[in-house]
């Protein structure tokens, strides 16, 4: 029995379907009412899913911004490992509502979930 699911997002947006799929899996779990706690942790290139300036319409892809906001609307936490983002692209603005954390905190977040699935 598992009452908490963490969606670990490692893939960047748009090139792969993965990050979008992960966010949608999270939304499905929350909407089901069967899994009380579902949160998102973006690491490595996955942190790019939280970049505020995304314009998915430029590649006519479904919006990862919308997918993140849908999770936030369901009161999920969306965590972004700040040091990974900084190393990749520098200090770019993030979507409102996401929480920038360090790896120490990220490990605590993982600890707080029964299941982890990677996208």
């Amino acid at each position, binding site marked *: 029995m598992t009452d908490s699911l963490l969606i670990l997002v490692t893939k960047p947006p748009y090139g792969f379907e993965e990050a979008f799929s992960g966010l949608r899996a999270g939304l499905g779990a929350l909407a089901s009412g*069967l899994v009380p706690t579902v949160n998102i942790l973006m690491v490595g290139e996955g942190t790019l899913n939280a970049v505020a300036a995304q314009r998915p319409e430029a590649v006519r892809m479904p919006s990862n911004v919308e997918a993140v906001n849908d999770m936030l609307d369901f009161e999920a936490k969306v965590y972004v490992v700040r040091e990974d983002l900084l190393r990749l692209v520098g200090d770019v603005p993030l979507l409102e509502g996401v929480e920038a954390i360090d790896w120490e905190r990220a490990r605590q977040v993982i600890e707080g979930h029964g299941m982890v*699935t990677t*996208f």
Partner: protein
Amino acid sequence: MRTMVIQIRSGTMMNMDTNIAVKLARAALDKGYGVRMFGYGEGVTLIKKGQDPKRFPNVGNETKELVEKGLEVVVCETCCKARGIARGEEIEGTKIGSLTNDLSRFVAEGDRMVTLAR
């Protein structure tokens, strides 16, 4: 019964991920665990009826055999539609279902999640 949830996101002919999924499922069933498999993204191809990979292992047939031994297999309907896989094309005993109803149920009732993806 303790349950393993296998989430498979690779297509049947992309790599060996689906083969690993069925091998893990078989070993877990043999040990008396419950096993539930959810096909997501390209992973939905696992349940397509009529697979004929010639010299490669036929994961479709293996899945069917494991379903008879108690494996529950559900794949994402939205992903099936995206790939032109319609209801009625699934292997007998498997189901085209949803993230909300099925993957979530698997998570809630499961003990471990094995994610097979790249």
